[in-house]
Structures are given as C-alpha cells and as structure tokens.
C-alpha cells in the first residue's frame, strides 16, 4: 500500500500538475484565449454553454466538500496528503469553471441564482447522498462515491466535451484537458486505495456494491438529462451558417461524429463508454457492477 501511495505524494503532484501541465495557464487556459464570439453573441449557444458549465461547477463543489471532508476520515497519513492535493485540484476546478461562467457573461452578483436555476436535480441529489457519507466519516463510502462513481463517470463526459470543443472552442478544451489530467489521478487513487481496502475488509464488499448501485443512478440520470437539453446538431449548424461560418464536422469521439449525432446517439455511446469503463474499474477494485434502479419517487 505504501509503495502505490508514493506515486500520489505532494512532490509528485507539484511536479506533474502546477509545475507541469498547468504551467503558463491562467484559470486553466492560455492567458490570451477567450470564448468564441458566436458563443457569446448567440443566446441559444450561450445558454447551452452556461447550462453545461453550471453542472461542472455543481459537481466540483461537491467534490471539493467531499475530498476536504475525507481528510479527517482517512485511515493513514499518506491518504490524507493525497486528499490534500485532491482538495486543491477540486478548488481549482471550482475556480476555473466559475470563471468560465463570468466569461460567458454571468454577473458576479447573479452567480448563485444562475447555478440554482440550471443545476440538475439528480446531480444535487447525488451530492447530498455523497456528503451524508462524508459527514459520517465513512472513508470507504466517501472514496467510492467521490473517486470511483462521481469522477469515474464524469471522466468520460469530460473527454467527450473536450473532443467536441477542440476545434470550435480551444479555450474551454484546454481547461477541460487540465481537469481530465487531474481526474485521471483521482480515479487512479480511488481504484488503488479502495482495491486494497476491499482486500483487507472483504466484509465491506456488499455494502460498496449497494452504494455503487444507489449512487450511479443519479449520475447516469444527470448525463441523460443534459444530453436531451439544448440545441440539436442541425440547429447548431444553422446558427453557425447564419453567422457566416462553416460548421465543423471533424470532431469525433468513440467513432461518433459529435457535430452530427442526435442526442439519443450521444446518450447511447456515452452510456456504453461510461458503463464499459466503469465495470472494468469495479472489476479491478474487486467488486461486481450492480445495475442501478430508479429510486422510488
């Protein structure tokens, strides 16, 4: 256990993150980068960008509260130090995505109202469930909820968003690339640390599986809701063409042309990817995937 945690120490984090892929960035992107004019000027695209970014802020606020709250619950010093780096990563994510909302024209005094207006209720419910476990100082449940379910599932969504924005919005794509690099580290820690705890305490396996079943519903429901909202690819093409631009068709993710895919196709491929990787991750941890059920209303 000690050896694997050596790869998650603060010195490593400093060299790879602030002194590595974040070098020469400001709020996660190049100092001169800005949101595309079309996103700022077109009400439909701007609203879509605000709606997406609000989910990122809500998810990252939850991750900040969870990772900082888990420091006191961690059973060993090395895990506490790793969680300190994760806490700062999550705070940085809150900062960069909040700044994106400002860049999109949200006024500072309106921030909380905008977040309340657009926050997905399923994501809010997920956060409540996770923070209940963190408040109870349940380290295993907290790490499963945060580093395995929340970040493990969000990871693929970030990758898809990054692929979709690489050509059309390099500023947002760069911000996402830094976030993805952080999430990769967090997910790796969760997988390794929970894997070792499941081996030490096999009696907790059933409890962890139940937790995964309960929590993953709300994450999948959030992704589904977001996919079904906003303009269709045809509407986006029309907006781009009407503004005198040429719609970008190159963006691909998992073999799907993102600028042409219908919401149902996006949801299906995202669901397949998330679940495929998620099942593999759970297998490596030593637990079996449980199909989530719709909670009783």
């Amino acid at each position, binding site marked *: 256990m000690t050896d694997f945690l050596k790869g998650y120490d603060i010195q490593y984090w400093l060299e790879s993150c602030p002194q590595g892929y974040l070098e020469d960035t400001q709020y996660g992107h190049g100092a001169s980068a800005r949101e595309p004019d079309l996103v700022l000027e077109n009400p439909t695209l701007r609203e879509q960008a605000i709606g997406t970014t609000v989910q990122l802020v809500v998810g990252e606020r939850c991750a900040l509260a969870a990772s*900082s*709250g888990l420091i006191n619950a961690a059973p060993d010093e090395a895990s506490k130090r790793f969680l300190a780096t994760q806490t700062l990563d999550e705070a940085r994510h809150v900062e960069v995505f909040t700044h994106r909302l400002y860049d999109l024209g949200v006024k500072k005094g309106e921030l909380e109202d905008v977040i309340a207006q657009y926050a997905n209720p399923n994501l809010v419910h997920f956060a409540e469930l996770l923070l209940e476990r963190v408040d109870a100082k349940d380290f295993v449940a907290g790490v499963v909820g945060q580093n395995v379910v929340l970040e493990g599932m969000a990871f693929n969504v970030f990758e898809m968003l990054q692929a979709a924005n690489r050509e059309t919005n390099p500023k947002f794509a760069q911000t996402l690339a830094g976030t993805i690099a952080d999430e990769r580290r967090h997910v790796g820690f969760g997988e390794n640390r929970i894997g070792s705890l499941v081996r030490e305490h096999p009696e907790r396996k059933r409890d962890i599986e139940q937790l995964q079943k309960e929590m993953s519903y709300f994450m999948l429901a959030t992704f589904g809701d977001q996919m079904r909202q906003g303009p269709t690819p045809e509407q986006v093409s029309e907006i781009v063409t009407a503004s005198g631009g040429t719609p970008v068709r190159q963006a691909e993710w998992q073999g799907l042309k993102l600028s042409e895919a219908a919401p149902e196709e996006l949801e299906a491929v995202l669901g397949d990817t998330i679940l495929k990787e998620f099942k593999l991750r759970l297998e490596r941890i030593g637990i079996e995937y449980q199909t989530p059920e719709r909670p009783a209303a």
Partner: protein
Amino acid sequence: MDLHALEPEDFDREVRSFEFWLDAVRDYLPTADGLELPPDDVAPEDREPLITVLSSYCVGEMMALEGAGGLIRSAPNRSSKIFLSTQTVDEGRHLEVLTNRMTELGVEDVDAEIRRRANPYLLEFRERLLDLIAQGRWQQALFVQNVLLESMEFAAFCHHIQLADARTRAILEGIVKDERRHMGFGENELGRLIAEDPGLRDDLSHLRQEFDYLALGSFEHALTELRIPAAEHPTLKRGYLAAVKRLGFA
C-alpha cells in the same frame, strides 16, 4: 494587474485564488531539477533531539492539515474555500517534507516514532480544534487554526531556524513563508468579522485563554524533553505571544 487598485471584494478573491497561491509558492518549491537542499551535517549527538522536535512538528502539521481541510465545509464563501484548499495542500506538503527529513535521519517507522514522541498538549489542542470544526463554529475554529496554531508554529520554526543545521533550516524557511500567508488570511478574515460584530473579540479572547494553556504547555514540554535550560524557555513563549499580538489579538 495592480492588486491594490482592486475593490476590496475583488482583492480578496484574487489573493485567495489558486493562481495567486501558485505564483506565491513557485519560487521556493523544490522541483524535479531545482532548489537543492544543503547537505546533511547533523552532529550525531544532535540527531535524537532533532527527531523529537520533528515529531512534534509532524503532530502540529497533521493537525493543521486536518483542520484546514475540515474548515473548508463551513467557510462562508468561495474565495475562503479556495484559500483554505491552498492551505490544506501547504500543510500536507509540510507534513511530507518533515517526515522525509525524519527518514533521512534514519527513522524507519516514522508513524510509530511520531506516536511514541507525541506531545500530549498538542494532542489535546488537536482534539479541541477538531471539535470546534465539527460543530461548524467557523469564526472560533478559524481563530484557533489560523491565528493560534499558526502563531505557535511560526514562533517554534523561527526560533529553531536560528539553531538548526543547514538542511533543516532550509526546510523550515520554506514552511515559514507559507505560515505567513495563512496567518494573513486569519487576520484579514477575523478582522472583518470583528468589525461587523465587536462582541466577537471578547469571545475569541476567552477562547484564547483556554488554548494558550495548551500552546504554552506544549512549548514547555518540548523544551524540557530537549533538556533546554529553564532560563531559555521564556524566549520561545514570548515569540508565540508576540506573534498573536502582531495579529491584533493581544
């Protein structure tokens, strides 16, 4: 950007940001290929006392790590949460460099050594600080963490820097730079809260009396363990009291 031209709210947001933290620490953080520490030149007879001192520092930094992390939840706004996140990683880094130093000095099981040598006054300080945090008492917990605990560490490290071997001194000098930032946040945030609610100052003064006993007790215990002559003990205690006073909490 001219920080001093900003409105107070924007100034706070800026100086508490991740970006500001990164700029502040960039010059003194060790990197893969830079900031080499001086060679180890601890005399054999100084090794044991140094391990005892470092063990106490580790208990203090562990408490500071748990405290800063725990405070994030009750912080009243985003900029405070973000600042406390930078403080959390600072405290974790202090713990890491101090435990590495113990390993360099030949300690094989650092955790066991820290437990064996732990200062009982510090352990009680930790328990009471974490209680305040668990109760969500933001102002009181921030006062104990960022004024009293940071002043204790500041006084102990500044005192030790004058006597330390070159390698330990370089480590402590880096830590002290972080402590100044943490104390500044506590002073600024509590100063604003006291201006809004003057009764808070009395509340914090009572709290201070309770915690001073533990702070001064922990210094006494450490100095006795180190067999420092009793005549020299008041210097360190005065350093702590002066640090608290400088922050406006005489």
